[in-house]
């Protein structure tokens, strides 16, 4: 494998700009690596080699002519397959959208293109982003690069595995209840769900609008900051996007945590948390304390109800969002010559959707239906308010809240597939940030038997700077012992 692939995005940008290497040479190396490992990893659903190489050649020739190039000039970015790229198949890992070719770019894609990033391919995921393992893909599962018998996490499993396995340098996922932090943790890399509204959702195929954010994934904190800066900012195509001013995250890449106040809620170490995970996270906290941060153990009682609240809201929004898939304007359409419209739609949806998607649509339909709306949906939204209130109270005393990203180590393929509730339980620590709309990051902090462990940090809305700063320090002082198996 070429050493070029191990370089960080900023190192690559500078080498490409000074013509030490060409973008074309680097992109070719990425595809060589992809071809070498994909039969074992399966991180991609669609590769966009021709488009990527054409773009790389264009960047190289602009550099040779001394023309201006963007901040991500020549950098390979893998894109989760629920983010639309004009004229490139976008499947959501579903049979429903197996042949869907969007006629437009998502706003994040426009921004990446304008910064001269190279879109290398579309990555595997749980169907419609519903899952924690990427096993719910209708295109087959992705494998963890640190142990091929284990899941990479989900739902952005392909985006995380491709970055970890050095098939690409950075990637985009989406995070509705942990879908970027979970696979980042399981694959031993960095993933951040930004503040709700920081990044435009235009062109992200909707699952649960009030919870989800397009989210960056990288092998190091500096690359993550660089990618976040490129895609953040208000967009008139997404009325929930916010004007946050300039996100100057590169300035936060300093190894200094003195005076940072950390809250450690005991609820994040609840029943079901693996002891090796707790131990690793506490070691990271002690490390930060040694570097000048202070911490206190706290209680945030509402967090115990986050998971139930999250799933009710996510499923309700999903049942409404996915009502659009009738097979008429786009998507899977079976021959319906002999059926009335209602049966025709039902058949398209039966064949097009996988088991987990149907389960969530059914449960969401239930939670929104007459007689149950108050008991489930509205109740979950009231609990969501209590969680937000308790967190904002805690953030009066603390800069950060720290706990595990995932309560357990990466599990074996198939291990939790037959028990949906057990799979949902894995999201217990990540859903909190989505309910509250606050930013959260997962950083590798340790390993156990070669399997990565991630520590999760949450900050108040729009305080990505604090997350990046503390994550950067942790990265300088913790070097988990990890080895790729591909």
């Amino acid at each position, binding site marked *: 494998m070429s050493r070029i692939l191990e370089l960080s995005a900023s190192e690559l940008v500078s080498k490409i700009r000074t013509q030490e290497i060409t973008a074309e040479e680097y992109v070719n190396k990425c595809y060589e690596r992809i071809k070498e490992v994909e039969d074992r990893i399966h991180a991609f659903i669609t590769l966009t080699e021709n488009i990527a190489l054409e773009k790389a050649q264009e960047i190289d020739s602009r550099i040779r002519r001394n023309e201006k190039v963007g901040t991500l000039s020549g950098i390979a970015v893998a894109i989760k397959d629920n983010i639309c790229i004009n004229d490139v198949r976008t499947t959501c890992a579903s049979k429903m959208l197996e042949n869907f070719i969007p006629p437009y770019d998502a706003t994040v894609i426009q921004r990446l293109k304008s910064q001269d990033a190279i879109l290398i391919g579309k990555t595997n995921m749980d169907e419609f982003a519903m899952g924690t393992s990427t096993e719910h893909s209708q295109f087959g599962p992705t494998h963890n690069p640190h142990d091929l018998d284990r899941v990479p996490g989900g739902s952005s499993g392909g985006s995380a595995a491709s970055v970890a396995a050095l098939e690409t340098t950075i990637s985009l996922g989406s995070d509705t209840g942990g879908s970027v932090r979970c696979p980042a943790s399981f694959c031993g890399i960095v993933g951040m769900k930004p503040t709700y509204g920081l990044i435009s959702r235009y062109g992200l195929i909707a699952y649960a609008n*009030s919870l989800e954010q397009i989210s960056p994934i990288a092998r190091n904190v500096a690359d993550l900051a660089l990618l976040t800066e490129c895609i953040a900012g208000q967009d008139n195509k997404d009325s929930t996007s916010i004007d946050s001013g300039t996100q100057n995250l590169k300035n936060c890449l300093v190894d200094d945590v003195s005076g940072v106040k950390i809250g450690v809620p005991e609820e994040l170490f609840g029943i079901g948390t693996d002891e090796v995970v707790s131990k690793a996270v506490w070691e990271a906290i002690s490390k930060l304390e040694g570097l000048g941060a202070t911490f206190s153990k706290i209680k945030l009682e509402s967090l115990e*109800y986050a998971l139930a609240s999250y799933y009710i809201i996510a499923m309700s929004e999903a049942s409404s969002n996915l009502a659009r898939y009738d097979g008429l304007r786009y998507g899977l359409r079976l021959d319906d010559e002999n059926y009335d419209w209602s049966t025709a*739609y*039902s058949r398209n949806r039966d064949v097009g959707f996988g088991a987990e998607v149907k*389960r969530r649509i059914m449960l969401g339909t*239930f939670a929104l239906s007459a007689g149950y709306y108050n008991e489930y949906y509205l109740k979950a*939204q009231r609990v969501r308010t209590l969680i*937000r209130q308790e967190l904002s109270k805690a953030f009066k005393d603390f800069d950060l809240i720290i706990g595990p990203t995932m309560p357990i180590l990466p599990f074996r393929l198939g291990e939790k597939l037959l028990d949906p509730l057990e799979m949902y339980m894995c999201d217990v620590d990540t859903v909190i940030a989505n*309910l509250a709309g606050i930013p959260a990051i997962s950083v590798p902090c340790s390993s156990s038997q070669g399997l990565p462990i991630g520590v999760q940090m949450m900050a108040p809305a729009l305080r990505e700077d604090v997350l990046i700063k503390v994550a950067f320090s942790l990265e300088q002082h913790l070097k988990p012992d990890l080895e790729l198996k591909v």
Partner: protein
Amino acid sequence: MSEDKKITKEQVKHLAWLARIKITDSEESKYAEEMGEILKYFRKLDEVDTEGVEPTHHVVDVVNVMREDEPEIKPAENILKIVPAKKDRFIKAPRIV
């Protein structure tokens, strides 16, 4: 709200109709069982006193973002290209009556 509230096969059938998902008779009992178990977990929220608490629909305090009502013309061909069944420039719908 009783603890032992179960999902019946009839309810599953009704929900599947509402959601326009075709399910078979054998799937009905499987759904009933699975959904029952998940809903039982959701009822954990009954423990929380939410009297007088406003629901959160949205975490960002933005309201009614307006823009000028100016049409943006895009070629219809790009959109028609992805329609699975069409006649000329029209989308073919299934039989309504």
